[in-house]
């Protein structure tokens, strides 16, 4: 017979679970409502498609959106092969548990480094030492380094979840390791990998500290024409600067508008990737 204290504890636990879920969703919802109410009034086609004027007090944010998209795409192209290679080496090729654990520890440490330190490292190493200068490529590379743990661990988890039966059956059919990777392992873990990439990219798009030292300037940049010494404008740095000028009502209003656009960009990236994620998930299902 179940005691009444046990029932009471069970009910309390369920209540706490619902309460934490409610608080989390409410905070997210309130934040979005606040952003929408404050930022919506600044939104217009002109705001989205025209360049900034008077230090951001008037004009739009076209080059900031473009710069942010360039950074996101560069990050994506760099992090994709890097994390895939890292995860495959860690999960498939390395046999020794000690080496695997060390690689995992390295990723966790990398994940815990504050973003401002990434910025300082990037500034001294890429911008100064390697002479890349402030550039979209430097920023993209640094952001890729920053989200590498998220994407790699997501793919590793996906690989670890694959049933060993698949791999054993593939090997028994005479398939080589590379054939197994491309026919079994990657298709099976791609959905997890895409989720990790999206999480990482959403974080990267909103980061200010790493790119303010390495990639972005506040004004004067348009479309990049080269790889080195080719800075861009970006939404996070733009918002950062406008908020510092927040005594001016128009600057504050534009900061809210830019923030809303930034959130919309993150939602857009997730939205674009959703069909791919669902397809990968569906294809991996037996």
């Amino acid at each position, binding site marked *: 017979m179940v005691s009444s204290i046990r029932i009471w504890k069970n009910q309390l636990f369920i209540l706490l679970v619902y309460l934490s879920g409610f608080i989390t969703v409410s905070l997210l919802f309130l934040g979005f409502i606040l952003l929408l109410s404050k930022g919506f009034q600044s939104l217009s086609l002109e705001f989205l498609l025209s360049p900034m004027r008077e230090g951001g007090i008037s004009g739009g944010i076209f080059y900031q959106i473009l710069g942010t998209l360039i950074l996101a795409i560069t990050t994506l192209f760099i992090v994709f092969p890097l994390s895939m290679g890292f995860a495959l080496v860690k999960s498939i090729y390395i*046999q020794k548990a000690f080496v695997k654990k060390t690689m995992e520890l390295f990723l966790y440490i990398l994940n815990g480094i504050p973003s401002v330190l990434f910025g300082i490292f990037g500034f001294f190493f890429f911008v100064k030492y390697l002479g890349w200068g402030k550039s979209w490529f430097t920023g993209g590379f640094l952001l890729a380094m920053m989200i590498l743990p998220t994407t790699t661990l997501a793919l590793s988890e996906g690989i670890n979840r694959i*049933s060993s*039966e*698949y791999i*054993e*059956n*593939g*090997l*028994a*059919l*005479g*398939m*080589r390791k590379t*054939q197994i990777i491309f*026919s*079994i392992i990657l*298709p*099976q873990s791609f959905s997890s990998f895409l989720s990790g990439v999206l999480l990482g990219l959403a974080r990267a798009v909103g980061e200010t500290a790493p790119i303010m030292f390495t990639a972005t300037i506040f004004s004067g940049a348009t479309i990049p024409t080269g790889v080195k010494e080719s800075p861009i404008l970006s939404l996070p740095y733009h918002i950062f600067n406008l908020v510092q000028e927040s005594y001016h009502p128009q600057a504050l209003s534009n900061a809210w508008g830019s923030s809303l656009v930034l959130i919309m960009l993150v939602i857009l990236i997730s939205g674009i990737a959703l069909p791919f994620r669902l397809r990968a998930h569906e*294809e*991996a*299902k*037996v």
Partner: protein
Amino acid sequence: MTNLHSSKVLSVKNISVSAGDEPIVKDVSFDLYSNEILTLMGPSGSGKSTLLRVLNRLADLESKLNVTGDVTCCGKSIFENYSIYFLRKKIGLVFQKPCIFPGSIMRNVLFGVRHHLKLDRKEADGLAEEVLKKAHLWDEVKDRLNKSASILSLGQKQRLCFARVLAADPEILLLDEPTSSLDPHSTHEIEEALLEMKQTKSIILVTHQLAQGRRVSDRIVFLSSKEGVGRLIEQGSVEDLVSCPKTKELKRYLISEV
């Protein structure tokens, strides 16, 4: 019965397997002849499945396993004279539990072979039909080849795994208790398929079911576990082993199976 003119296709010579210091199988030797079905029979833990994994070198995956002795296939050592990928194509293995890859029935049939051969659409369709017929599955799936393989029943899945292995055209087939969890109809279909396949291939079947061994085998190799180590106790034709077993282990096993 094995034809007297059959040639030896696989020769297992003094194979012993251990996991670290723990012996699993000790000093097992037997031969497999062309166009015969040889059944490895014995109680659980006698090392039958381990032996099969040694024969197509899946045991290599387990770093703790140590294999001594030799296995020759067509006169050449499988450990020294064959590429591991070629060997696994030549000696196909069907597992106890059917493993279906995500995707259609057609994709599953061609899953292994498309990595070995370049097939155009017509050749792929032809091959799929051929091997599905050999696996006694064609009539049940011919109208839904592009549908997901996950909708098949367990018995159909096992026959699909059969077809997938056959598509690579192995000379030797290893079957690890392929009907242990199947219904009588699927078991019958698989046994029929085995007897037909015997015309062109040599087969090693691992089974617990004496009745199955009697129905399909030409010869039986009986293994038993002594102090946790699998050993070969007796081998010979089905009639000899079943009607006049020489050892008490086999007698005991036969009584328990009746």
